[in-house]
């Protein structure tokens, strides 16, 4: 049987260039995205800067992020220390570069794991429906009643602090939020004729889900996991700031704002200013990119 089921309109990318053509290849898509979504492109560039900084921190960072230099404590920004030093004489620029790594590890891992778990639950819930859907929805309702940071705090109180536990703590509250959105998109697709057709042709659940349901919820799914990366980075920063997240000596932006930052606020403001700016610019970039991605992937939401 070689009956191919036509792709749905929803999977057709809406990213078109000025001649109405759809770009091909990664390079073509990138070029067209930059032309059509300049604001999103700025966001992407910001994210890439911090992401690359995190990956190549060993090579770029001028100093060791954890080595103290008591001869150079709370030094103002200078040629030797571009962003100044903290109360232990550690170079702020180096700590911010390494902090990018922590932020992205936590942000990407928790958004991916949380997002994919949510995708599986959401699609399964919509596809199988019935009792499974009913119970899953009730459980998701309950988990959703916990504000993200409160849930994360509760998880940290049990498993303790540290990078791994922070990831778990942030991932759990993200799952229902993704499942909810995926489910509502998947529900609409379950009813379309080609899914019925696939069923009538005797295709198995796995094939229908993988070939027809999942590709169709990819748009909203990509948008939501992009937003999750930003939320996870903010949550990690908040937990670390509270002393309940990443622990010293791991360099993390939230941690850099803890303790010293407030104490030295008036005498050495750079300790407080730069790590916060790093968080803000990264999440700002992610949000700008996410907004453009939504415009591209979901034409219904354009102009919003």
């Amino acid at each position, binding site marked *: 049987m070689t009956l191919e089921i036509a792709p749905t309109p929803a999977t057709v990318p809406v990213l078109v260039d000025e001649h109405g053509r759809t770009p091909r290849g990664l390079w073509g898509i990138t070029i067209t995205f930059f032309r059509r979504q300049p604001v999103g492109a700025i966001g992407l560039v910001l994210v890439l800067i911090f992401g690359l900084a995190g990956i190549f921190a060993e090579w770029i960072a001028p100093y060791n992020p954890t080595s103290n230099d008591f001869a150079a404590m709370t030094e103002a920004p200078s040629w030797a220390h571009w962003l100044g030093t903290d109360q232990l004489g550690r170079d702020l620029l180096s700590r911010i570069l390494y902090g990018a790594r922590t932020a992205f590890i936590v942000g990407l891992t928790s958004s991916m794991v949380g997002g994919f778990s949510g995708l599986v639950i959401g699609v399964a819930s919509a596809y199988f429906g019935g009792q499974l859907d009913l119970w899953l929805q009730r459980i998701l309702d309950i988990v959703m*009643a916990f504000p993200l940071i409160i849930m994360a705090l509760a998880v940290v109180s049990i498993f303790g602090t540290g990078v791994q536990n922070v990831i778990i703590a942030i991932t759990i509250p993200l799952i229902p939020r993704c499942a909810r959105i995926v489910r509502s998109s998947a529900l609409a697709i379950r009813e379309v004729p080609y899914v019925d057709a696939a069923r009538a042709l005797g295709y198995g659940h796995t094939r229908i889900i993988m070939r027809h349901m999942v590709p169709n919820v990819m748009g909203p799914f990509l948008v939501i996991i992009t937003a999750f990366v*930003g939320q996870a980075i903010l949550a990690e*920063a908040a937990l670390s700031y509270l002393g309940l997240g990443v622990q010293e000596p791991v360099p993390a932006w939230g941690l850099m704002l803890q303790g010293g930052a*407030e104490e030295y606020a*008036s005498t050495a403001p750079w300790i407080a200013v730069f790590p916060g700016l790093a968080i*803000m610019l990264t*999440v700002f970039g992610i949000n700008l990119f996410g907004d453009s991605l939504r415009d591209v992937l979901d034409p219904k939401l354009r102009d919003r």
Partner: protein
Amino acid sequence: MYRYIISRILLVFPTLIGAAALVFLLMRLVPGDICLVRLGSGGTSFTQASLASCHAEIGIDRPWILQFIDFLWGLARLDFGNSMWSGKPVIMEIATRFPISLEVAIMATVIAVVIAIPLGTISALKQNTWIDLVVRSFSIAGLATPAFWLGIMSILIVLDVTQAVFGHPWMPPIDYVPLWQDPIRNLSIVMLPALTIGYRYAAVSMRMTRSAMLEVLREDYIRTARAKGLIRRLIINRHALKNALLPVVTVIGIEFAFLIGGLVVTEQVFNLNGIGRLMVLSVQNQDYTLTQALVMVVVTIAVLSNLVVDLLYAWFDPRIRLA
């Protein structure tokens, strides 16, 4: 209508019981013996007998289901047990700190509404102009700024400005006084935290106002109103804004629950002795009874604010209550 209201109110109970079950389960996942943590936390030595009596006191030796029923019964009577750290009843610990958090939360909501609705509306009306761009950037930045950093920055600015103006730095006082005793002192304590939290809250609501407004402005009845020559102000206030506000109300209600999450960090920055700070302390001290009570309080507030949103929605939108 009444059927909808009653069924919606009844739906709160399974959610709350489920949340209680989740909290109960989470707290039982604590690795090791909760009594060892409790007895060992003071750094003192303890005997087998005291360990056994601790087990009996918490009731860990009984079946889980009985423990859970006891836990629920305690919640229903607002009896959360004693704090493992201070030894005082948990409900007292929470009650003394609740007013300040509530005040900050309410003020942040007011600030958010006052900023978000006019700016969001203007942004929609002037779509794709520089005003729109500025407002949107302001709101995307609001979503990206960590509340605690904004708090630190606002303290920094206040210190610098007061230093420049009065010659000596001024900091808002920390010891809380109720609004009716000393309004100025109260407001000087609460204002900065409320602004800090309110910014993010405003950013979210602003985006919602803008998108809802844009959608409504494209409706046929707006075109009709315009065609019949109705003045612009009336169209916007009476026809557009009124309908656009529904989703905004939802966002404000849902975000109210998240605001309590924001309180956790902001109270820490401003040294406010509210329930957010209490939550951080309880986690740091591994005070499980206090943590579970606080989580339940927050979840209850979240569930209730969702309920209020749904009821308001039904009130405003006859299509829902008649469906």
